[in-house]
């Protein structure tokens, strides 16, 4: 492995966005293959952050700054990804359900998923059931991820499952749910496909759904 990839990973984990951007450009200039920069520099660094987050070794602010560093690096790589035929492992859409404005959990899941090489369509907060379904259908998302913090808005997750059924796409998408009041029992009760208790587990589950293999 080219030593610069380790530097990219290390600086990403420390949240040093500017340095990551410079290192990614240097790696490109040195002829390191785009896919290697992405996989062994950026995604590898973010994976380490995800594992540490799951083990309570790093915390929400550290994940946020690391994800920002990763995004800065990806921006440098973006023009080269198509030429190198590097594709995401799949596409998902994510949002906080209608009536709920909380976004920290949703943002963390998005970042962890992007760190696994998944393309994420972020629908924001207060998202109507039809928007999830329409986005999945129109943009080819294979997973719909639903977040809720409020006990009263959890119920909107049921509406999304129902809307997916009514739109005839339920067998084409997996529906993942999460958020402080959400439980595995609730997930099963509403007919969703997976509940995960934290952002890192959500990203791992999404990889499993998209690739058929454990993350």
């Amino acid at each position, binding site marked *: 492995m080219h030593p610069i990839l380790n530097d990219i990973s290390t600086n990403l984990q420390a*949240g040093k966005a500017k340095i990551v951007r410079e290192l990614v450009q240097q790696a490109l200039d040195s002829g390191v293959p785009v896919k290697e920069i992405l996989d062994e520099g950026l995604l590898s660094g973010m994976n380490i952050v995800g594992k540490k987050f799951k083990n*309570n070794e*790093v*915390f*929400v*602010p*550290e994940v*946020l*700054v690391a994800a*920002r560093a990763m995004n800065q690096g990806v921006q440098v790589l973006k023009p080269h990804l198509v030429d190198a035929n590097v594709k995401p492992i799949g596409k998902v859409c994510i949002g906080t359900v209608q*009536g709920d*404005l*909380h*976004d*920290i959990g949703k*943002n963390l899941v998005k970042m962890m998923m992007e760190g696994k090489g998944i393309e994420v369509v972020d629908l924001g907060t207060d998202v109507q059931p039809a928007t999830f379904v329409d986005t999945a259908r129109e943009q080819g998302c294979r997973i719909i991820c639903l977040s809720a913090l*409020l*006990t*009263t*808005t959890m119920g909107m997750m049921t509406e999304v499952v129902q809307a997916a059924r009514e739109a005839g796409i339920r067998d084409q998408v997996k529906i993942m749910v999460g958020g*402080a*009041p959400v*439980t595995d029992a*609730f997930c099963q009760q509403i007919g969703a496909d997976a509940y995960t208790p934290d952002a890192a587990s959500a990203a791992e589950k999404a990889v499993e759904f998209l690739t058929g293999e454990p993350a």
Partner: protein
Amino acid sequence: MKRDMKAWKEDLIKAKAKCALPILSFPCVQLMGVSVEQLSRDPALQARGMQLVAERTPACAAVSMMDLSVEAEAFGATARFMPGEVPTVKDPIVQTPEEADALKVPQVGAGRTGKYVEAIRQACGLINDRPVLAGVIGPFSLAGRLMGVSDIMISCYDEPEAVHTVLKKATDFLADYVLAYRGAGAHGVVIAEPLAGLLSPGLAEEFSEPYVKRMSGAARSDEFLVIYHNCGNNTPLMLDSILRTNCDGYHFGDAVAIAGLVGRVPEDKLVMGNISPSSQFLGGTPEGIREATLGQLGACSPGHPNYIISSGCDIPPMSPWENIDAFFAAVQEYYTGV
């Protein structure tokens, strides 16, 4: 009516059969047939709601509405009301260091804060058999509502001075707000600092501890208790910092195993928690909450006289009263057998 709250706390610790102190207020809407929004805008309704809860339950104290949108609204943020749900703050109002500098500290009374103080004044007139506790947001949690939750986390690294600027202003207001509650007759306050529970221990030490400590120092007296609440999942890692805030009691959420915390809290401080508000009080059954309560007491109470069973956070407005009643019955059942 003034109370010797220091003696009240000591008596609570000495008592063999203890009462429970859940964060229970908003479910009064079911007893009154009013909406959460009506309640959160009307001091008389709030006081009456607290009275009804006190009449129905043997809780150690009456606790006011934990409406954590009130303080940010006083600073100029917009609160959003949803049917059956506690109000939340819509959008951040501080997005740059310049906006942090320009942020004005409101007077107590701005927005709905005057109504909440008045509610405590009226509640103290209606409830005489137990202390009345007010509720306020903690400084980092307020700053997070003003700056945006994700943004403040990143700003702890990028713009720490701006975060401290907002925290200082938030604490200026909150310290006055707590003193207004004390002046209205409250016997104590619960400071809810949930957002700090997402920080690393180091960041919590820098961005939460000193500000909570300042609030606590400004308000505590023999007649006024300060209770710290944090329902984050990192509280075990930041417990030393939390204890340095020098409050009278510490209240933890159901994201942590409280049995592992009780022994770490000094014996002269109350330690409280943490039956799940969502899965037990709201979504559970009377049988399930009885089992959870007895289990929690069995795990935490023996050997820890300063442990007081509670909910893990504020109990959602539409939690079935049969579950709430079952919680209190289970507490009584446990202590009858002790």
